């Protein structure tokens, strides 16, 4: 596995906003100057952004990085609540306070030649950063983006990032663009057609709503493909202290502890999305319906 070579420790940073512009209705692309994070962040990692100088809204907001260069980093966000509404009004040159880089990002499986990046809506963000990294890996010859959304607007965001070093497949549930339906159905069809070529040398990287993550997990299991999911969660601290962003995972024998004494055997174990994630192996996750 290729992972980040050394652990980079997160810090509190004061950064400068370079631009903050709408790329589709309610979707914004924000770039800030923060060399310390930009130089060290790894695809899949995130930052906690302070959205107010006051106490309301109180908490920082987590955002996956969607790209970096030597000096600057970028995020992509959808205006969905009070925090992001405040952010949408931010202007260039203003100060931005953030903590990062945070969390454990994607890892590249040994010998992977083909990558499938499967995203739902704004879930494209961490995958764009991953693509930026994969583009520097010569052995990765196949790079495919599958992006789905409810409407054409959800997909239009990708236009802003073109040209992208990947084959792009899009699906809109309202039929406005590309495949008419769910991106997971489009993806399943593609995998079925090419399954024989991809076994043992392909991996899936995905980020999107719960139903999509579950569908992608099922596809990965059916075709024996490695699959990593970047999860979204409500966080209070983002640094691993509060245990607020718990996600149910299968206990592994190696780190058997919490609850083992209580239950005799361990049915599941909570992990922190912010610290052990946000990227998890799909086989590790326990979905509530199980």
């Amino acid at each position: 596995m290729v992972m980040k070579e050394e652990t980079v420790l997160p810090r509190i940073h004061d950064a400068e906003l370079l631009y903050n512009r709408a790329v589709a209705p309610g979707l914004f692309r924000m770039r800030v100057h923060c060399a310390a994070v930009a130089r060290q962040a790894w695809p899949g990692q995130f930052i906690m952004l302070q959205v107010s100088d006051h106490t309301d809204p109180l908490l920082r907001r987590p955002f996956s990085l969607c790209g970096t260069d030597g000096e600057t980093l970028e995020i992509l966000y959808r205006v969905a609540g009070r925090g992001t509404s405040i952010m949408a009004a931010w202007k260039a040159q203003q100060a931005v306070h953030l903590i990062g880089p945070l969390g454990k990002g994607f890892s590249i499986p040994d010998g992977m030649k083909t990558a499938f990046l499967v995203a739902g809506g704004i879930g494209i963000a961490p995958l764009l950063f991953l693509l930026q990294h994969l583009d520097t890996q010569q052995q990765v010859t196949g790079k495919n983006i599958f992006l789905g959304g409810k409407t054409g607007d959800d997909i239009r965001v990708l236009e802003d990032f073109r040209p992208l070093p990947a084959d792009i497949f899009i699906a809109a549930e309202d039929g406005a663009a590309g495949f008419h339906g769910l991106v997971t159905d489009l993806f399943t069809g593609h995998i079925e057609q090419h399954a024989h070529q991809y076994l043992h040398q392909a991996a899936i990287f995905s980020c999107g709503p719960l139903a999509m993550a579950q569908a992608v997990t099922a596809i990965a299991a059916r075709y024996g493909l490695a699959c990593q999911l970047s999860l979204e969660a409500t966080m209070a601290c983002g640094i691993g202290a509060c245990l607020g962003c718990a996600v149910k995972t299968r206990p592994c024998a190696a780190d058997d502890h919490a609850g083992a004494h209580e239950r005799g055997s361990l049915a599941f174990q909570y992990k922190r999305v912010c610290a052990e994630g946000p990227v998890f192996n799909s086989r590790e996750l326990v979905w509530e319906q199980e």
Partner: protein
Amino acid sequence: MYISLDPLDPGPLEPCINIMNKHAQQTDIDLSVTIAGIRLKNPVMAASGTCGYGEELALFLDLNCLGALVTKGVSLHPSQGNPPPRIVETPSGMLNAIGLQNVGLEEFATKKLPFLRQFQTPVIVNCYGKSTEEYTELCSRLSAIEGITGLEVNISCPNVKEGGICFGTDPARAHALVRAVRRVTGLPLIVKLSPNVTDIALIARSVEDAGADALSVTNTFTGMAVDIQTCRPKLANITGGLSGPAIRPLSLRMVWETVKAVSIPVIGLGGIMAAEDALQYLITGARAVQIGTALLVHPDAPLNIIAGIEEYMRARRCSSINDIIGCLKLP
């Protein structure tokens, strides 16, 4: 994680600059307080549940700057905690229903405490149980472990043997529990009170009578939030504990009622974000304060709060924090 306290070790963790100690050397302002026999170099502590076992916070803050650190609540056995969602933001606050997830006594002692022992800061272990027997066994075993300066007993827990009735909301039950714990520990015993009571002074007195050395006032206020689109509670646990600036006036009022009722030291907490907030508690009579939710937003908040208290004292030509504590002027 890599942490080294060796100043010659050029490890990846850049040492946080200890601003407070530098200030202390340069000025003759005395911020130190004594609580339950524990000497704190300043009255600003990190509150339980917001700083884990110190490891995460140490990346952003030199733990030696703190007056004391109160650990995440430890129980006899590991606990998985509540299902998610566990957190919801509310106006100037947040509700949490973590469910006291923790690694349990054994792992705390072997894997978490050694990290905290590296610092000079007093380590106060927050602990809880589901029955009197669990509390006493836990506190007795904690008392035998080296490196623990004091205990903060969380009594806002349901007693499973009494049908889930909270220990901390009934004066007689709170008294019996603290008396039982007092018998098994020689460590400084701080009791963290629940604010979800009609008369906190009654509980405070009963806990003092049972042998507590100090009180932490208060824990979170039980609250609730509902998603009107799904018509579901926003927390999987339905209710949770409210913390943050929203509760500050409520907690401060309870600190006021408590300091009038007891003679043991009171530690004030609830929504402290800045020095002004901490000073309100100290002036009201709290001998120290704890910083909780603010740490989740600004992990370095204690630095600004300590510096702000010092600045306030300097402006008022005040040399000892003890001159501030309880200096409330009444009409």
